[in-house]
């Protein structure tokens, strides 16, 4: 600015004036100059205002146009103190009242005349009269003297752009803005002016909803708009505000482009430090490429940036938050997750200004990180950051939600071990006070469900029961209730509690019969089929399986469904159909690379096709051998639970192919491998088959020797060694049976002694804890049936029942029940429960039959005759088709009829027993005694057969006596005693006058 010197013309003219006036003008001039040079703009403005008010009326006449100096500088000072209206008026008067026209000699020119137009424009711009401002700028350009009226083209173009943007003339404004930017260095266009004009451009495009104009402008001018970080930091708040405005106007691309113009805080710090290093030793600001480098200002920038960084209040935090919002709003949760993860990584101390306060943000960020991670199933993150959140913000308003997210996310994504850990911890923290809260509900559900899914069925069972008892349908979310109902039913089937499982699955299927809204439907149908199969309800099993196959073509375990279907069909002796099902399972499993199921299907096919029945030639053995070979040669043996089974099932096919040695070697290897496998699945069956095959070419002694030193078995592996011993016992038992059948008493007693010794060795040498369930049951059975202290067997059965391994559960239950049945009344009642369980849930039909018969027997001994009548009715009814214990069951039923006063039914039942089983004296004798006693006591004149009851009783006894007396010598002493009772009764009746005894033949 040229206020430093009064133009020479004015000085000359002032000197020519009257002394007092000249004195005033000079004083005004000098004072204002001094004040302006000292930057005392308010004072200067006061002096200049006084001068213009005092002198203006006659100034033109007295001083000529040069008096415009005062108006121009008054305007200039007014601009400095932001009195823009006064400034505009001052510049206007300078321009309009003091033109350089007809200047009298001695009166100087107004050198500011045209410049006043420019400044007038500036003042009008400041008072937001943009159109008028543009008019003044245009007039300035048109009227100015290029040699004298200098101006800053950078600033001038920015002002033109600014006014045009304010007036909505985006295109025109952009033209001028670009001129200023393209010539930034030449015009020395100031950064602050650039940014304020840019802000106006953004306002204009938002108003005009013309995002494209903004995007294009940034794309074309990014190189100039994006300032070096240490300079750009100053404009970050402005850019953030503009970005927010753009966001609110839904110009999201614009928002992000604006974000991209503001420098990263870390870059600002690095840049400022680097410049300060470069400027070391410089005593004054350094000008470089249009930028004035002022070390103190750079230091201030550095301090600000570092302070913001240390407070966590940096622009990146706001940018991240808005980025997350955008991504989540459009459904890209992974993008939001990516943002929250970065916030946690790079800005753990993030703060934002909220209602004028710096507010910490980490709690909010971490919560959102957990939330978004759970939504996209980034489970590691959910757990990691969820745990971090819970540690850092106990009692937070988000705490329950974080716990819920962690649990549900882990659970529904199959991370059950972690889910159990978290759920257990949550339940511990909640304690008993939090009953029925949603947290407690979810944690309880997740814990029980996870136990179910990881196969801890015993632990899952009480948890699921407790959950469903506490969280009834009304008290929890429907999806959890539904899931828990299914889990419980399915869990029961895994525990082989078939009856309960069947009932619960039926109830579940009845409650949720439609696939829509029941994601568990195909699984429940499959489970139901499995239960039906276990309970030998094969047709029902097939029906359920058909439903799965027909209604759920995309069911992910169709291969397993087909295998079960094959099992059912095989049980129905539908061998062709079964083979077809197994082949379907194989095809699906191969296609989906489900290797365990491929191995299973190969086993079923080997066993089905390779089965050899006595006396029947099997021409398909080579086919079976091919499936067998595929199992072993194509790598399905690894970790397959079927390797022992297929090694056994393939023996006939291999023997047929004269590969007996190979079959035995493989079986031997499998036995050794299984001995090292947790739980030894299939080991017993493998040993039995091996034994059978081995004995075809070896003696018992060789077997014994071989088994006591079995290749590949660790001497410390007690479980396997015990199994091998049991195998030897089994063989001796077989031989003993044979000896007994052949009446070779010497061999039989030798064998019996050997068996006793072998069992005793087994009991002495092996700790029950290391023995398999199979051996424990065998030992228990031996102690129960072959020794005088059956009670000792209880420990072995109970060991089995205390294990989670559910194999041999039912034989153990039965054995224990047998021991208890001979005990006190309370023991008997316990025996009833166990027998009932075996009858209901065992998959072994003969075991079920035995259990039911024994149950009837025990109920009878307890005097529970109604129970006996009911159960015997089941046993003898057409549905069960049980045969083995008909006679004792009929006899016991007869007794119960008698005890309950149903003499007719009793008589009928006893009659069936003795008349159909004469030779079985142990039953027929007591039956005929009971039968005749009833008739005798009834004493009707005509029993319906034309004779009296008493005569009929005698006749029957006589007939019985006659039929069996010839066999008397061959009877056991017990039977002889019973026969004697019959004879005594017959003689007693014969002595009665009501009885007519036929003459001896």
């Amino acid at each position, binding site marked *: 600015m040229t206020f430093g010197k009064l133009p020479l013309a004015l000085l000359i003219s002032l000197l020519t004036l009257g002394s007092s006036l000249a004195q005033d003008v000079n004083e005004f001039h000098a004072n204002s100059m001094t004040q302006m040079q000292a930057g005392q703009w308010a004072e200067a403005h006061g002096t200049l205002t006084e001068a213009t008010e005092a002198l203006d009326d006659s100034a033109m006449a007295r001083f000529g146009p040069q008096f415009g100096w005062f108006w121009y500088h008054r305007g200039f000072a007014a601009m400095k103190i932001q009195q823009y209206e006064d400034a505009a008026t001052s510049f206007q008067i300078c321009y309009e009242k003091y033109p350089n026209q007809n200047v009298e000699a001695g009166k100087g020119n107004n050198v500011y005349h045209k410049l006043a137009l420019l400044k007038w424009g500036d003042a009008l711009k400041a008072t937001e009269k943009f159109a008028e401002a543009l008019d003044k700028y245009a007039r300035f350009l048109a009227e100015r003297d290029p040699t004298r009226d200098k101006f800053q083209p950078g600033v001038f173009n920015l002002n033109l752009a600014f006014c045009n943007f304010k007036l909505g003339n985006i295109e025109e404004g952009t033209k001028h803005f670009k001129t200023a930017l393209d010539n930034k260095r030449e015009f020395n266009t100031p950064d602050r002016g650039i940014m304020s004009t840019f802000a106006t451009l953004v306002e204009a495009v938002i108003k005009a909803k013309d995002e494209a104009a903004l*995007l294009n402008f940034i794309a074309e001018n990014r190189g100039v708009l*994006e300032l070096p970080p240490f300079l750009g930091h100053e404009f970050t708040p402005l850019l953030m505000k503009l970005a927010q405005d753009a966001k609110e106007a839904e110009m999201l691309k614009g928002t992000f482009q604006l974000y991209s113009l503001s420098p990263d805080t870390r870059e600002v710090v*690095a840049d400022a430090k680097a410049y300060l290093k*470069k400027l070391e030793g410089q*005593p004054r600001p350094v000008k470089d490429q249009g930028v004035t480098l002022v070390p103190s200002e750079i230091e201030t920038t550095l301090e600000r940036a570092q302070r913001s960084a240390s407070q966590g209040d940096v622009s990146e935090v706001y940018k991240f938050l808005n980025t997350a919002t955008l991504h989540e709003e459009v459904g890209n949760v992974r993008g939001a997750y990516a943002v929250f993860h970065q916030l946690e*990584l790079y800005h753990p101390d993030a703060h934002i200004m909220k209602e004028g306060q710096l507010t910490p943000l980490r709690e909010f960020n971490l919560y959102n990180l957990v939330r978004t991670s759970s939504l996209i199933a980034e489970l590691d993150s959910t757990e990691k950051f969820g745990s971090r959140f819970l540690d850092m913000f106990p009692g937070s308003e988000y705490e329950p939600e974080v716990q819920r997210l962690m649990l549900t996310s882990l659970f529904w994504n199959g991370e059950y071990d972690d889910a159990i850990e978290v759920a257990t911890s949550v339940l511990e923290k909640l304690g008993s006070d939090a009953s029925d809260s949603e947290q407690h509900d979810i944690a309880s559900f997740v814990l029980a469900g996870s136990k179910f899914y990881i196969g801890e069925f015993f632990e899952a069972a009480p948890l699921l029961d407790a959950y469903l008892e506490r969280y009834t349908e009304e008290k929890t979310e429907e999806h959890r209730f539904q899931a828990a109902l299914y889990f419980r039913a399915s869990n029961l089937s895994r525990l082989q509690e078939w009856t309960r499982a069947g009932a619960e699955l039926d109830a579940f299927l009845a409650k949720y019969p439609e696939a829509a809204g029941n994601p568990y439907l195909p699984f429940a149908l499959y489970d139901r089929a499995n239960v039906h199969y276990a309970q030998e309800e094969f047709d029902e099993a097939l029906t359920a399986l058909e439903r799965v196959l027909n209604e759920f*073509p995309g069911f992910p375990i169709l291969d397993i469904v087909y295998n079960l279907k094959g099992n059912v069909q095989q049980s129905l002796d539908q061998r062709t159909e079964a083979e077809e099902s197994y082949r379907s399972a194989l095809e699906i499993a191969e296609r989906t690379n489900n290797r365990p199921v491929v191995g299973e299907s190969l086993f079923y096919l080997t066993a089905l096709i390779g089965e050899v029945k006595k006396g029947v030639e099997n021409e398909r053995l080579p086919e079976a051998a091919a499936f067998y070979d595929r199992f072993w040669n194509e790598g399905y043996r690894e970790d397959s639970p079927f390797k022992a089974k297929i090694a056994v099932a393939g023996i006939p096919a291999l023997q047929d192919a004269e590969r007996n040695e190979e079959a035995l070697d493989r079986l031997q290897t499998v036995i050794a491998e299984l001995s090292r496998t947790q739980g030894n699945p299939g080991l017993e069956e493998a040993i039995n088959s091996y034994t059978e095959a081995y004995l075809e070419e070896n003696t018992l002694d060789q077997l014994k020797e071989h088994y006591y030193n079995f290749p590949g078995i660790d001497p410390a592996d007690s479980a396997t060694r015990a199994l091998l011993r049991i195998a030897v016992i089994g063989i001796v038992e077989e031989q003993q049976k044979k000896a007994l059948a052949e009446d070779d008493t010497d061999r039989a007693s030798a064998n019996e002694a050997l068996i006793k010794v072998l069992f005793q060795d087994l009991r002495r040498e092996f700790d029950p804890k290391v023995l398999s369930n199979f051996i424990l049951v065998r030992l228990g059975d031996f102690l129960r049936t072959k020794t005088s202290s059956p009670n000792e067997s209880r420990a072995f059965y109970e060991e089995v029942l205390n294990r989670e391994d559910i194999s041999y559960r039912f034989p153990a239950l039965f054995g224990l029940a047998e021991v208890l049945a001979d005990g006190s009344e309370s023991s008997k009642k316990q025996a009833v429960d166990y027998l009932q369980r075996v009858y209901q849930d065992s998959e072994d039909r003969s075991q079920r039959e035995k259990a039911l018969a024994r149950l009837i027997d025990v109920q009878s001994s307890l005097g529970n005759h109604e129970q006996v009548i009911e159960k015997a009715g089941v046993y003898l009814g057409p549905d069960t088709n049980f045969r083995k214990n008909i006679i004792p069951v009929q006899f016991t039923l007869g007794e119960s009829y008698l005890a309950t006063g149903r003499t007719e039914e009793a008589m009928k039942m006893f009659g069936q027993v003795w008349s159909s089983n004469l030779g079985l004296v142990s039953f027929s004798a007591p039956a005929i005694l009971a039968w005749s006693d009833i008739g005798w006591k009834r004493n009707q004149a005509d029993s319906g057969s034309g004779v009296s009851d008493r005569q009929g009783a005698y006749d029957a006894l006589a007939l019985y006596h006659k039929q069996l007396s010839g066999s008397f010598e061959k009877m056991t002493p017990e039977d002889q005693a019973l026969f004697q009772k019959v004879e005594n009764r017959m003689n007693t009746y014969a002595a009665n006058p009501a009885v007519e005894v036929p003459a001896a033949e």
Partner: protein
Amino acid sequence: MKAFLLISLLFASGVFAQQNPPVVALAVKDGKPFPIWISAASDRAIRYTETARGTVYREALVKSLDGLYFQMPVAFQEGLELFRGHKFEEAKAKFTAAAEAHRIVKDFPGNWSILASFYLMECSRLLMELDELQAQMDKFDDETLLRENHKKQIEINRYWDAIRSESWTRLLTIAEAEIETPLPGYQRVQLAYLAGLANEKLGNTRDSLTFYNKAMTADFGASDVYSIQAALNAFSLLKENPDVQVAIRLFGTDEFEEASEGAILLEEAVALVKVWDKAIGVGKELPSQFREFSKYEIKEETAAEGS
């Protein structure tokens, strides 16, 4: 006198690099700044004149000066504006010129020559000219770089080389570890992109998608070269995913399962198209094969009917 002898010896030994036109600098001695035109320099001494066309050469030990500020070469400023304007190819020529213009002072900390060489490498990296980047790296000595961030970038440049050698596991290990450290946004973008790429090559679809999303968001679009490429890679990954292909086939049928892996990823692709339209795809059209994802958006009414 002693100093003069030493400098003369330095000049005589040929340690000095010489150049024309001279490097303009602002020297400070005894607290007084004065412009100098340096015609030859080592890391310890300079030869200069005190006017632009001066013929009186003076020599000084650098340590005898209180300050020495090298004026930014015009070519560097022009290069930087082009670089910031994402005109990397054009910027290369300017940075090459700037590096040459201040070559004689390249041993001074924070000199413009080394900085120009640095930005030259940045251009190669952003243009994905990895062979060239590696060749530049081989010649580059980062000792005089002042900013730690720039030194870090030199390290990251080595990771880019893993793309050339297809060392995906190594790249993944490094990138995943590095991205955990506090770095400026433009470097986080690179590491996220590299981790996304390595995961993609190693067949880790979900991890790859997550890292590509980090690349899209790490510096809010400023490194659009990578954010755009990350989005395109994510689209390709989703397009080629077998589960997504199944979901596309089943879309609109009763067999379409919203909770399936394919359907979830398909909807992620749909959302990504929106992200592209709203934020990422500035100045670049989304290829039609990816825009087609929009057809598979599950409308709320559909979702409500299905649920």
